C-alpha cells in the first residue's frame, strides 16, 4: 500500500511517459491484487494508464485472481476500469472477453431486478462466453443460475428458463440451476415454491431436461418439506388456479380444464401431483408413498369409525345436553326478564300510563292528581310487556342471530346458544389436527343434533313459559276483578253506613250539601299546591288508598283515616269543617233583629260549652274550624271583661256557620251555629236567600227585652246602657218564620217539626232596672226548667206585650222553650241581684238553649 501511495505522489503531476511506464512496470511487479491495481488505474487516469500499457498485465492479474480465489467485488471494480476505451487499449480480444465476463458476473451477482433486461443479457452472455477462462465462465453461469432460481414470479421464472434453456451448452447452466433450485425449494415459502413449480411445469412441457429436474430435484427437495407446507402449496395452487392455469395454457397451447388440480393431475408426461403426493420414482420414495397410502387409508378408516361413533353415541348425548341447556337457559332468561319487569323501583312505569297529567297552574285540572291504581289496568300492561319482552329475549338467547334486540337494547355478548354452538364447531373443525374436511365429516352430525336439541329445548321451554304466563294472566285477572268488586262494595258499604248513622256534611259557607267532598293532600298543600282530589273514594285510583302526585298515600275510606284530611266543598271550594263526615250535623240559626245581642249570646254560649268541657271531659267540646278560633278568643276576652268592644259586629252578608263538635260516641254532633246579621231579617227577600234554613234542626230566637217599647220606656236609663235594639222583634220573627216555612220540608203542616228556644237576653241590664222586673225575680229557690220557661214566657206577654209574638212562635214550632240569659253574667261567679227586690236571681245557663235544642236530636 505504501508503494502505491509513493507511486501516486511520483506520478503527480504527470512525468514523462517513458518514466511513468517504467516505474509502473516496476511497481506492478511488486504489487499484488486487483484492488490495488484498480486504485492504481484510478490514480493514473485514463491517458496515463493507456500510456503505461499496464492493461494487459492487469488483466492477466485479474484472471489469475479469479482462478485462485474466485471472482470478488474488487475484481468487478477492476473490470469496470479496464473496459474504459482508453484503459482497454492494448488488451487482447480474449482478455477483453474475460473482463466482460467478470462484469456479467457482477451484474447477475448483484440485485436481481430488471428481470427483462437481464434475461436477454443472460442468453447473449451464455452464448458469448464460450471461450472465456473456465473458472470465470463457471462463476458467471452460477450467478445466472442463482438469479434464475431466485425469480419468484412464475411468469418471470418460466420466461427466463425458456430463454436460457434454448441456447447451446445448456448443460452447464442446468447443473448450476439445479443446485440453486434445490436450495430455493428447501428455503422458500410455499407460495414461492408453488410459483416455481408452475414455471417448471410450463417449461417442462417443451424441455425434457426441465422435466427431469421436476422429477428428481423437486421431488427430493419437496419430500424434505413439512406436510403442512405441501398442503399449503396445493392450497395456493387451488386458490390461484385461474391465473396460473392461464400461464400454463399459454405455455403448452392447450385448452384448459375446469380447474387447476385436474389439469395438474392429467398433464401428459409430467406428474406434478406425484411430486406433492408420491414423490420420486425411487425405491425409498416408493416405500414412503406406500406408507403414506396406508396411513391415509387407516386415517380414513379412523375418520369413518369416529363419524359412526359420533352418530351413534355422541349425537344423542349432544342432543340431550343441548335440549337441557336450551331449556335451562330459556327458563332462566324468562325468570330474569320477568323479574326485571316487576323489579319495582328500578323498572320504568312510563309504559303503564298511570302517572297523573302534569299540574296546570293556569286553572283547575279536571284530572285527578293521583296515580292510577296498579291493579286497575296498568298491571296488564306490565303483563304484556313481560310476555313480549321475555319471549323475545328467550328467542334471542337460544337461537338469535345477532344485532339489536326488539326493544333496541344491545344483545348480551357471546351470541346466542345456536351461534356459540356453530362457532365452537367451526373452531373445532379449523383446529382439528386431521384437517377440516375430516373434522367436518366426523362432527357434522353431532353439531346438527346439538342444533336440533336447542330447538327442542326451546320448544319445551316455550310451552312451559306459555303455561306459566297463562296461569299468571288468569291470576292477575282475578286480582283485578276482585279489586274492582271490592272497590264497589266498599263504596256502597260506606254510603250505607253514613246514611244509617245520619251523617252528612253541609258547607258552612255556601250551605249546600257536600255530597262528595273534595280533599286536599296535606303534603302537596303544605308546599303550595292547590289541587283537589275530587273523588277520593275506592275506585280506579286505588281501593283502600291512592297515591297522590307527590307520592303521598291518601286513604279512600273514612274508616282508614280519610276524615283526617281537610275537606272542601265541591261547589264553592271553601274548607269544610275538620273531621268531615264523622258525626251527624245539627244546624241552629240564631235569629234576632239588629243589636239584639246574637253574637254576644252565641259567643257566650260557645264559651260556656267550652267551660263545661273543661270541667267535665265527658261533655266533649271541639272546634271544627280552626279559622274562627282567633275571633272567638277575642270575643271571649271581651265578654269576660264585661265589654262588647271586641265582639265583632256581624256583617250583613251570607253568614258562615260557626262549627263545633259536641258530645261523644253516637251522641256526637257537628253543630252549625248561624249568626246572620239582623239586617238580613229586615227584608223578606233577603231572608229567602239564607240557604241554611232548610237544614235547620232547631232555632234560637234571641229577643232583646229592650226592643219592646214599653220596657225601653220604663227602663230608659238602663236601656241606653244596654244598647237596646230598635228592630221590632215580632216583624223579625215573622219574616224568619215565613222564610223557614218555605225552606223546611213539611211546610204545609201547621207546625214545623223544629224546636225553638226563645231566649231573652241582656237580663243583666233588667236586673239593674228598678222599673222593669227580671223574669226570674219572683221564682223561689231551685226553680224547675218548666217554671223558668213559664216565667220567661209570662214576662214576654206581660212586660213586653208580646202575646202575639209568643202565640205566633208557639203556633209555628213544634216545641218551644223560653230562657232568660245574660252573656256577661256567664263570666261572673256571683249571681246577679235584682235592683227592685234585692233578691239574688239565678238566670238560665247561656248554653242551655242550644243544649235543649240538641237534646231533641239525641245529644244530652
Amino acid at each position: 500500500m505504501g508503494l502505491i501511495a509513493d507511486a501516486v505522489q511520483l506520478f503527480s503531476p504527470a512525468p514523462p511517459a517513458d518514466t511513468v511506464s517504467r516505474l509502473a512496470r516496476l511497481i506492478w511487479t511488486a504489487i499484488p491484487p486487483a484492488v490495488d491495481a484498480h486504485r492504481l488505474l484510478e490514480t493514473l487516469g485514463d491517458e496515463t494508464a493507456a500510456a503505461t500499457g499496464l492493461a494487459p498485465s492487469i488483466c492477466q492479474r485479474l484472471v489469475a485472481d479469479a482462478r485462485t480465489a474466485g471472482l470478488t467485488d474488487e475484481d468487478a471494480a477492476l473490470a469496470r476500469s479496464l473496459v474504459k476505451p482508453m484503459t482497454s487499449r492494448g488488451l487482447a480480444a480474449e482478455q477483453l472477453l474475460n473482463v466482460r465476463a467478470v462484469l456479467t458476473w457482477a451484474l447477475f451477482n448483484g440485485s436481481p431486478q430488471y428481470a427483462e433486461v437481464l434475461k436477454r443479457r443472460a442468453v447473449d452472455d451464455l452464448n458469448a462466453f464460450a471461450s472465456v477462462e473456465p473458472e470465470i465462465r463457471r462463476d458467471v453461469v452460477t450467478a445466472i443460475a442463482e438469479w434464475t432460481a431466485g425469480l419468484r414470479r412464475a411468469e418471470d421464472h418460466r420466461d427466463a428458463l425458456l430463454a436460457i434453456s434454448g441456447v447451446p451448452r445448456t448443460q452447464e447452466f442446468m447443473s448450476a440451476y439445479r443446485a440453486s433450485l434445490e436450495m430455493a425449494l428447501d428455503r422458500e415459502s410455499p407460495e414461492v415454491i408453488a410459483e416455481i413449480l408452475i414455471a417448471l411445469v410450463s417449461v417442462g412441457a417443451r424441455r425434457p431436461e426441465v422435466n427431469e429436474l421436476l422429477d428428481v430435484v423437486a421431488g427430493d427437495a419437496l419430500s424434505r418439506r413439512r406436510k403442512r407446507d405441501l398442503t399449503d402449496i396445493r392450497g395456493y395452487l387451488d386458490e390461484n388456479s385461474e391465473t396460473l392455469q392461464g400461464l400454463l395454457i399459454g405455455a403448452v397451447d392447450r385448452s384448459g380444464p375446469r380447474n387447476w388440480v385436474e389439469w395438474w393431475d392429467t398433464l401428459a408426461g409430467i406428474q406434478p401431483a406425484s411430486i406433492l403426493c408420491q414423490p420420486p420414482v425411487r425405491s425409498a420414495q416408493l416405500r414412503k408413498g406406500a406408507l403414506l397410502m396406508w396411513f391415509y387409508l387407516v386415517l380414513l378408516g379412523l375418520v369413518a369409525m369416529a363419524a359412526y361413533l359420533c352418530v351413534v353415541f355422541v349425537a344423542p348425548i349432544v342432543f340431550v345436553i343441548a335440549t337441557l341447556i336450551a331449556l335451562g337457559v330459556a327458563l332462566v332468561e324468562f325468570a330474569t326478564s320477568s323479574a326485571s319487569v316487576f323489579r319495582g323501583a328500578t323498572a320504568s312505569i312510563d309504559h303503564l300510563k298511570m302517572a297523573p297529567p302534569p299540574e296546570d297552574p293556569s286553572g283547575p285540572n279536571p284530572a285527578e292528581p293521583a296515580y292510577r291504581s296498579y291493579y286497575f289496568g296498568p298491571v296488564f300492561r306490565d303483563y304484556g310487556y313481560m310476555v313480549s319482552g321475555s319471549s323475545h329475549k328467550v328467542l334471542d338467547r337460544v337461537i338469535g342471530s345477532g344485532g339489536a334486540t326488539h326493544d333496541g337494547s344491545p344483545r348480551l355478548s357471546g351470541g346466542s346458544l345456536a351461534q356459540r354452538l356453530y362457532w365452537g364447531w367451526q373452531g373445532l373443525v379449523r383446529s382439528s389436527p386431521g384437517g377440516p374436511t375430516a373434522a367436518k365429516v366426523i362432527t357434522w352430525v353431532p353439531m346438527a343434533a346439538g342444533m336440533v336439541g336447542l330447538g327442542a329445548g326451546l320448544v319445551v321451554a316455550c310451552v312451559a313459559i306459555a303455561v306459566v304466563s297463562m296461569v299468571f294472566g288468569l291470576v292477575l285477572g282475578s286480582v283485578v276483578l276482585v279489586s274492582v268488586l271490592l272497590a264497589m262494595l266498599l263504596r256502597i258499604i260506606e254510603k250505607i253506613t253514613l246514611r244509617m248513622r245520619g251523617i252528612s256534611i253541609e258547607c258552612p259557607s255556601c250551605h249546600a250539601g257536600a255530597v262528595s267532598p273534595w280533599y286536599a293532600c296535606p303534603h302537596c298543600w303544605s308546599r303550595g299546591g292547590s289541587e283537589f282530589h275530587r273523588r277520593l273514594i275506592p275506585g280506579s285510583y286505588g281501593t283502600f288508598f291512592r297515591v297522590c302526585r307527590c307520592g303521598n298515600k291518601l286513604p279512600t275510606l273514612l274508616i282508614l283515616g280519610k276524615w283526617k284530611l281537610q275537606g272542601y266543598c265541591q261547589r264553592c271550594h271553601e274548607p269544610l269543617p275538620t273531621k268531615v263526615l264523622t258525626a251527624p250535623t245539627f244546624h241552629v240559626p240564631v235569629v234576632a233583629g239588629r243589636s239584639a245581642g246574637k253574637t254576644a249570646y252565641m259567643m257566650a254560649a260557645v264559651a260556656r260549652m267550652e267551660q263545661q268541657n273543661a270541667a267535665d271531659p265527658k261533655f266533649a267540646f271541639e272546634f271544627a274550624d280552626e279559622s274562627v278560633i282567633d275571633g272567638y278568643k277575642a270575643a271571649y276576652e271581651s265578654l269576660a271583661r264585661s265589654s262588647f268592644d271586641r265582639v265583632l259586629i256581624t256583617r250583613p252578608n251570607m253568614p258562615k256557620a260557626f262549627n263545633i263538635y259536641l258530645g261523644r260516641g253516637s251522641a256526637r254532633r257537628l253543630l252549625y251555629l248561624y249568626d246572620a246579621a239582623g239586617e238580613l231579617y229586615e227584608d223578606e227577600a233577603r231572608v229567602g236567600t239564607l240557604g241554611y234554613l232548610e237544614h235547620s234542626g232547631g232555632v234560637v230566637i234571641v229577643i232583646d227585652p229592650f226592643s219592646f217599647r214599653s220596657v225601653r220606656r220604663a227602663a230608659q236609663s238602663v236601656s241606653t246602657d244596654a244598647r237596646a235594639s230598635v228592630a221590632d222583634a215580632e216583624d223579625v220573627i215573622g219574616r224568619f218564620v215565613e222564610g223557614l216555612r218555605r225552606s223546611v220540608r213539611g211546610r204545609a203542616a201547621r207546625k214545623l217539626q223544629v224546636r225553638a228556644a226563645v231566649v231573652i237576653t241582656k237580663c243583666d241590664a233588667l236586673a239593674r232596672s228598678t222599673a222593669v222586673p227580671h223574669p226570674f225575680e219572683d221564682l223561689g229557690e231551685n226553680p224547675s226548667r218548666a217554671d223558668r220557661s213559664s216565667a220567661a214566657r209570662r214576662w214576654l206577654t206581660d212586660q213586653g206585650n208580646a202575646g202575639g209574638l209568643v202565640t205566633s212562635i208557639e203556633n209555628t214550632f213544634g216545641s218551644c222553650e223560653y230562657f232568660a240569659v245574660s252573656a256577661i253574667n256567664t263570666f261572673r261567679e256571683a249571681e246577679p241581684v235584682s235592683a227592685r227586690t234585692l233578691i239574688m236571681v239565678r238566670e238560665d245557663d247561656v248554653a242551655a238553649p242550644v243544649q235543649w235544642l240538641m237534646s231533641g236530636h239525641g245529644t244530652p
Partner: protein
Amino acid sequence: MTVIPNPIVNARRVAGVILLLTTLLTVAAAVILAALYANRAVPVAPLTTSGGGRRPGALR
C-alpha cells in the same frame, strides 16, 4: 330518572311475588300430574286360560 312512589313499587313487587308463586305452583302441579300419570293403575288382563283349563299356579 323518574322517582316511582313506594306504593306503586310495592304493588309491582306484589305482582312479582304472584308471578313467583304462580310459577312455583304451576311447576308443582305439573310434577304432581306427571307423578300421578306415571303411577296410574294399568288394567291387567285376568290370568285365565281359554277353555276352562287350569289356572297357572293353581293347586292340582
